[in-house]
């Protein structure tokens, strides 16, 4: 049975990692599609000073401010989602308002079923985000998303990025 997961986002850890546009080679070692990336701490509730609802704001630069050098890539890490398989956490990388990469930084391991889920879900995760936002959309309507899915972790990262 699904449980109401109200606490997940009270523990959002907003990791804003600034990757320089020119050092993408170093960040590539972090991404490399479905390679397991465990966070430094396995604590699913990292300490955080963020507000309860995780609201953060951004001010978009006006058109006049745009002619700047290549925009830096910023990574947003979503809250840890408790799925029926275990904790899932997703990090997206955003450059110039577009998601350029999505990766799971934490996901269930161990059982054979997990390996199956991971081999299916993780490779499409990256494609999924990159494709969905390429159409310049603000939100998605689809078959009901429940809290025990990968998308939930993904959505929270997207929400943090204000895409």
């Amino acid at each position, binding site marked *: 049975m699904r449980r109401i997961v109200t606490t997940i986002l009270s523990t959002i850890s907003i990791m804003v990692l600034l990757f320089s546009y020119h050092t993408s080679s170093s960040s590539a070692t972090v991404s490399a599609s479905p390679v397991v990336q465990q966070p430094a701490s396995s604590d699913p509730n990292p300490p955080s000073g963020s507000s309860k609802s995780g609201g953060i704001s951004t001010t978009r630069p006006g058109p006049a401010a745009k002619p700047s050098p290549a925009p830096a890539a910023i990574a947003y890490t979503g809250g840890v989602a408790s799925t029926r398989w275990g904790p899932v956490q997703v990090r997206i990388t955003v450059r110039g308002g577009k998601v350029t990469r999505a990766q799971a930084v934490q996901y269930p391991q161990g059982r054979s079923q997990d390996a199956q889920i991971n081999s299916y879900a993780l490779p499409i995760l990256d494609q999924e985000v990159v494709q969905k936002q390429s159409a310049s959309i*603000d939100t998605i309507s689809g*078959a009901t998303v429940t809290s025990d899915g990968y998308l939930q972790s993904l959505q929270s990262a997207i929400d943090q990025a204000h895409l």
Partner: protein
Amino acid sequence: MSRKAWVQQIMGMPISIHLRGKDVDSPMVAHVVEDAFDLLREADRLFSTYRDDSEVSRIRRGELDPEHADPLVQQVMALCRQAGELTRGAFTDQLPDDQGVLRFDPTGLVKGWAADRAANRLADLSGLAFCLNVGGDVVVGGTEPEPEPEVNDGSGAIWRVGIEDPRDRSRVAQVVELHHGGAATSGTAARGAHLYDPNTKMFVDRGGSVAVVGPSLMRADVWATALFVGPKSLMLRFSEVADGYRVISL
């Protein structure tokens, strides 16, 4: 133009509120957003079939006479009856439980109803546009769109709602531009065969989805479910009675 987003997990779903406008950081805005989330939490407390102590769970067990239920529960029961009549019985609040016994379950209507209530609260924010996404159903509103022909970067009060492709959920099949109203999608892509057809007394196990866009998310959601499970002839009824609503069958 500033924007701000909040997300919370309520009713077992991710619920996000996105705001655009001038004063998205004011305490008043934060207060109203929290009110909107509170309205959704209230709906969860009263209507959740996953909570043993909700009024709906107590009605299902025969412990609470609907006539003594919370006025909001009675309101939803009346809306369910209307939705059943409107859709010629394709929408129902009598769903089989784990043992296959039909019991009161207004979940199919409550989500949209609760989202519309929360959206009404968000509409109190003057000078701000909002987009509320409740587990894949969307309601938007707020300030009138300001035409910005030169800056067509998605800013302003028009929200571009991507309708998910049910055959490949990594893709968006269509994009609908909305500044007021709701968009609801019913299908089996996310949760399998969970949509019940009261006429055949079977859960519908087919692909595809039906999205409905219109003034009220609750109505749109009722129609999306009804058209997904109902007979093809229901489309005629839809076109006759659902003024202001349009359907996208995928």
